[in-house]
């Protein structure tokens, strides 16, 4: 994404990293739970779960948290999460896609809509902006492996 790394730098400098980190863990666990529910609860047999677990490990999420997230998928009283995608325009006609996992679509839709509204954007129809994007795979390696890869 253009300007992506610079944007990350700003976020870091603002000193919000700690708050974001705990949010990151909860987002990673949610993805694990949903992935485990979408197929077999075994990473060896469920590629989405395998990726989710790998990403959680990549962010140093403790193994206990990962196991708990997988077990949560088989709990009968667990929350039902749905995947929802919102598409809209931000200020200056910039296209924005938001992916959410929610147990309450009404709440999420209204939050997302109001966030767009308060920050000079508008929420559009599904597929109103996604045609301007490619769905592709992204693999990130930290810089310290640079020498190995050259």
């Amino acid at each position, binding site marked *: *994404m*253009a*300007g992506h*790394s*610079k*944007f*990350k730098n*700003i*976020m870091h*400098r603002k000193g919000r990293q700690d708050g*974001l980190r705990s*949010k990151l863990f*909860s*987002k990673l666990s949610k*993805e694990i739970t949903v992935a485990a529910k979408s197929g077999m609860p075994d990473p060896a047999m469920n590629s989405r779960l*395998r*990726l989710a677990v*790998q*990403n959680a490990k*990549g*962010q140093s999420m403790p193994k206990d948290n990962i196991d708990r997230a997988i077990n949560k998928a088989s709990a009968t009283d667990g929350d039902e999460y749905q995947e929802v995608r919102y598409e809209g325009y*931000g*200020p*200056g*006609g*910039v*296209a*924005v*896609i*938001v*992916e*959410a*996992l*929610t147990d*309450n679509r009404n709440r*999420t839709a209204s939050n*997302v809509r109001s*966030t767009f509204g*308060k*920050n*000079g*954007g508008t929420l559009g129809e599904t597929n109103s902006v*996604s045609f*301007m*994007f*490619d*769905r*592709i*795979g*992204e*693999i*990130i*390696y*930290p*810089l310290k*492996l*640079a020498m*190995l*890869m*050259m």
Partner: protein
Amino acid sequence: MMAALEAGADDVISDEDGHIIYCAFENIGEVSTSLAKELGAEAESVKPIFKPHNGTPIDAEKGATLLMLIETLEEDDDVQNVYSNFEISDEDMAKIEAE
């Protein structure tokens, strides 16, 4: 970066933060597995994303609002990922940072 291309990646972008490897959505499992084997290290993250075809340039004033929009969306507990096609010049980025 030959390792990545041999593993079936379409594109590799390296900057001061690290390496970003792009591949076809369908091949993500295959490419990441063979890359991890080749390098002897797991990636920091492997995920399907939305990558914009073209960037939309945006000035400092609107950029600041846009970054606020993205940040607020990402802080929402239900939101997993936010993608955007903005392009902000280094100059304008510095202005936003200074605020």
